[in-house]
């Protein structure tokens, strides 16, 4: 860990919040994609089923 001196709080806050924001964006995108994909597969399977 580098010595951040008297600005350690500012630097670590900037990095912490930004990395959490980017991770949340990726996680929400993946969650939404999985949900839509599952629903689409269900509907397509239902339409393919006989009867």
């Amino acid at each position: 860990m580098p010595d951040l001196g008297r600005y350690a709080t500012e630097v670590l806050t900037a990095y912490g919040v930004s990395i959490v924001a980017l991770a949340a964006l990726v996680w929400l995108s993946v969650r939404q994609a999985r949900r839509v994909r599952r629903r689409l597969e269900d509907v397509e399977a239902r339409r393919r089923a006989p009867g």
Partner: protein
Amino acid sequence: MSSLWEYANPRKFMATSGALLPWVSGLAVLCLVGGLFWGFFLTPDDFRQGSTVKIIYLHVPAAIMAINVWLMMLVASLIWLIRRHHVSALAAKAAAPVGAVFTAIALFTGAVWGQPMWGTWWEWDPRLTSFLILFLFYLGYIAMWEAVENPDAAADLTTVLCLVGSVFAVISRYALLFWNQGLHQGASLSMDAEQNVADVFWYPLVTCIAGFFLLFLALVLYRTRTEIRARRLRALLAQERTA
């Protein structure tokens, strides 16, 4: 030679983006993690800014991408308006949350850096103010897609919003040249070597910019694929309801 318009075909887009995504995502992680690690751990403090100089590895790439994502959305929206290709409208929709997060990061890291350097978290400076307005435009754009039920009408209305918001995207970029006042300093990156940051900061900064760009590309491809699937899902459900 194949035409760019082939990718307006959802099937072609899905095939191509599916093949590209693992490579773009891998490169994005490599550049972003590598660039941030390099900037945070391996660069010295600045003689005036101290360790706060490390914030530029987040602030500058996020700010550059915030403006350029909006301009990408403008181009995609205009393609929708002129040629009525659904994939381009969906790509603009997919890009908006990514741009909003980049803008929020630029605003937040700017404020955190500004407090010790300028003595204030916020100032109604031309660049800061136009950036805040750009952020509000992003939120408005996302809200409009959610609020309008008919997807084609939503794409038309958000295109108009995108056109208006582009004024603020351009102002955000050139505010310093237009007004030549305010707290915000000039560009950290320049073609003029005299104005550029020192090499020791420049190389990790460029790596981080590449990382942010590749992350944006990966997310837009991924989210556009989701939007295409959601559109097909809506169409199938509508068919079932009318059958």
